Each structure stands twice: as structure tokens, then as C-alpha cells.
């Protein structure tokens, strides 16, 4: 019997949703397991790091890593798996673009610790204990992974061959990616394995989008009763469909929610947030400076909204140091 190709899964800084997305393959996972050997998958299999280290270089056909790089352990595991794998695939928004967890790059490392271990109203920490990377307990040295200053994408740490976008990716895309690996029909290296056109092209509400959209106020979903059969933008609701890669089967739109951008920027766009700012601004129906201020004030957290999934991969990657007006 010929040897089956080996596949590995690993998670870095993630919520676990990408692991779920593999399980969402449902019965199709049986076809995958039939075709491959899963040699490493911490969430489901008891395989130790040392077992991975013992594998030969390039022995794993493809490794899917989800989650962003937050602690030094993520970095060393990414390096190890890169060495052991022929193909390294970034799985999900966090590995691809930094994801929601990279919004932490708007805060300094110290501020994150102070907030988390002292300032949160539900935290009681009278001794002022903060995590540190090592401590001696009963004569034994105990070590914790180090917390990096910023969150990085997977490809800011190791070379990545392909990207499966989404928060989380659809089971269809994961299955298609794995089958493409097995059947040796992958596109050019570095490709994002989804649509190349924006979400709007496949949006079920496409027909209701008028020729021109003019917005006097950006509205939030709770503020009014919106019409689920009409284009969100036309109703003044921020939808990032025009600047977001398609391929998600318009899951959010189908669930009456606007696109929040998890499939990331289109090819040839570096900064999805800048593009979001650009297209939304152009829809504003005013050229009066005071009115413009009022309209832009109806987006309370523009950077968080536009860079929700892509801050670590954006041009500035996070807060620029040296803000004098703080």
C-alpha cells in the first residue's frame, strides 16, 4: 500500500474557530482522513512537540496553521513546522492578516498587561501579580512562553506558500485546498485560495444596489429597522463587501449581517483598511466641512472597523510610536 501524504494542523493565537472549521467538514472529513495521515493536531491528537521535531525535513506534505503570532512559542512552532513541511498554508484571518487578535497592536504591550491583570473591574489582584516568562517554584525553574511586543501574521515570521482566508474559512474552501494539495493542482505560490473578485460580485443583494449610493449618516444595526432584502450600503450601514475578497458564499449577508471584511483585501491591495476608508468616504453625500465632521462622527471607531481583521498585515501594522498628544 503506498504511503499516504501527511497533513498537520497547528494553532497559534486564535479563538479555536478555525479548528471548528475543520470539524465543519462534517462527513467530508472522512474522505480527508481516508486520503491522508494527520500526523499532528494538538486540539484532537496527542502528539508531542518532540514527535514533530523528530520528523524529517519536508516530511509533512502540508501544514495548516491558524492563529496569529503572539508569543515566542508560536514563532518557534511556526519555524519548526515550516522546516518539516513541504507546504505551509496560513489557515484563517489571523494567520493570513493578523485577525481580530492583531487589534491588540493599537495598544502597547504594557497597557495590555495593566488592563488585563489590574484595571478590568472584575479583576482582583491585590498583590499586583503580573505574568513573567520564568519563575522559581520549590526549587524548580518554571518557564512560560514570552509575550511579544506586537502581533504578527504567519508570513511575517516564516515563508507561507498559500492562504485560506476567512474568520473562519468555509469548509468548502478548506476541503478544496486540501484536495488541491493532494491532486497537485495548486495555483501560483503565494495565492489566496478563494475568489479573486470582491464579495459584491456574488452578493445575493447585488440587484438591489443602486447606481449611486449617497450616505448622510452611517447607521448601526441596532439604530433602526433595516430592510434585509436591500443592499446594506444603500441603507447607510457600513458593509465592507466592495473591498473584501469573495469566496465566503456571502454567509454573513445570508444571515442578515453586513460584511465585516474577514476574507481580507483583494489582490494588488496592501491596506484593506485604507481602501475601506476610501470607498466609504466617497459615498458620503456632503462637501460641507461641518456636515462632514458630523457624518464621520457616526463611525465611532473607524480604525477598528476598517482594520478589524487586517491590522497586523496593514501598512502601519499597528499604533505608530511617539504620539505627542496622548
Amino acid at each position, binding site marked *: 500500500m503506498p504511503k499516504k501524504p501527511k497533513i498537520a494542523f497547528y494553532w497559534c493565537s486564535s479563538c479555536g474557530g478555525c479548528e471548528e472549521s475543520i470539524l465543519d467538514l462534517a462527513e467530508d472529513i472522512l474522505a480527508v482522513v481516508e486520503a491522508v495521515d494527520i500526523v499532528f493536531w494538538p486540539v484532537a491528537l496527542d502528539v508531542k512537540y518532540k514527535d514533530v521535531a523528530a520528523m524529517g525535513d519536508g516530511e509533512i506534505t502540508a501544514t495548516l496553521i491558524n492563529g496569529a503570532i503572539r508569543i515566542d512559542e508560536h514563532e518557534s512552532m511556526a519555524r519548526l513546522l515550516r522546516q518539516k513541511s513541504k507546504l505551509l498554508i496560513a489557515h484563517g484571518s489571523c494567520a493570513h492578516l493578523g485577525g481580530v487578535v492583531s487589534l491588540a497592536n*493599537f495598544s502597547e504591550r504594557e497597557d495590555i498587561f495593566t488592563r488585563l491583570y489590574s484595571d478590568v473591574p472584575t479583576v482582583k489582584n491585590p498583590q499586583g501579580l503580573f505574568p513573567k516568562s520564568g519563575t522559581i517554584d520549590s526549587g524548580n525553574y518554571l518557564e512560560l512562553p514570552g509575550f511579544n511586543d506586537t502581533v504578527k501574521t504567519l508570513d511575517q515570521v516564516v515563508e507561507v506558500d498559500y492562504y485560506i482566508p476567512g474568520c473562519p474559512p468555509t469548509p468548502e474552501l478548506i476541503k478544496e485546498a486540501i484536495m488541491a494539495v493532494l491532486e497537485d493542482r495548486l495555483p501560483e505560490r503565494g495565492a489566496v485560495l478563494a475568489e479573486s473578485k470582491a464579495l459584491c460580485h456574488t452578493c445575493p443583494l447585488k440587484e438591489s444596489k443602486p447606481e449611486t449610493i449617497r450616505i448622510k449618516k452611517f447607521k448601526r444595526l441596532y439604530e433602526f429597522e433595516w430592510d434585509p432584502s436591500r443592499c446594506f450600503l444603500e441603507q447607510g450601514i457600513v458593509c465592507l463587501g466592495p473591498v473584501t475578497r469573495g469566496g465566503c458564499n456571502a454567509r454573513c449577508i445570508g444571515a442578515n449581517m453586513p460584511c465585516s471584511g474577514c476574507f481580507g483585501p483583494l489582490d494588488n*491591495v*496592501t*491596506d484593506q*483598511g*485604507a*481602501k475601506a*476608508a*476610501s470607498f*466609504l*468616504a*466617497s459615498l*458620503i453625500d*456632503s*462637501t460641507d*466641512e461641518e456636515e*462632514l*465632521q458630523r*457624518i*464621520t462622527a457616526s*463611525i465611532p*471607531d*473607524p*480604525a*477598528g472597523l*476598517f482594520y478589524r481583521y487586517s491590522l497586523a498585515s*496593514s*501598512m*502601519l501594522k*499597528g*499604533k*505608530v*510610536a*511617539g*504620539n*505627542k*498628544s*496622548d
Partner: protein
Amino acid sequence: MNDFEPKIVGFLCNWCSYEGADAAGRARKVYPANFRAVKVMCTGRVDPQFVIKAFREGADGVMILGCHPGDCHYKEGNFQALKRYAVLRKVLVQFGIDEERFRLDWISAGDKEKFVDVVTKMTDSVRQLGPLRG
């Protein structure tokens, strides 16, 4: 840091503001050498990515200079710039880039004094703020 000289990148439209800067040059007006002019056909062409890239590559301040309202060679390109500016400045503040580091102004082909004035004021206020990456 007293000897700090800021780098200011300016995006100037071909029809009004670049002409205005040229007019200032022809009239031998003096403006700060901190200013680096980038000519674009219209301020409506200034993608927010250009502004962000300028800051990333080391600019301490960025200016967009275009035709006065109503004077745009392409009718409303400068209004598009104004709207993008209104949104983008809020985004940049969240990145820690002060509002004074990013300005938009209208300079006509004949506004040589105004050109010198806005560039000088911008340079002075950014010099006061200090380097973006301190």
C-alpha cells in the same frame, strides 16, 4: 531635540496647486526645504494608501493640496479628496498620528503666497510636534 527638521510630503494636483508651487518658485519665494512635492493629476487620485505609505516611509507630516472648491479640473475630484481626508484623519489619529500631521488645503495656480504660507505653517507645527517616530 532642537535641530529636528521634519520631512513633509505633499500631494499636489497638476492643475492648481502644483502650478501654485511653480508660481512661488518663479517669483523666487522662499519656502521650507522640508517639503517634498509629489505631483498627482488630481487630489481625487490620492488613495489613502499613498498617505499611509508616506507616513510609513518616514514622513513626519503629509499634505494634500488641491484646487479650490468648484475649480477642480475634473469637477469634483477635490471634493472626493475632502471626504477621504475627513475619514482618514480620524483613522490616523487612532494609529497615533496627530491631526496636525495631516492637512488638506486649497491652493490655486496663482496662490503663491498662500502656498508658501501653508507649507511654512505646516512645517513649523510638525517641527514643534517632533519626529513621528520619536
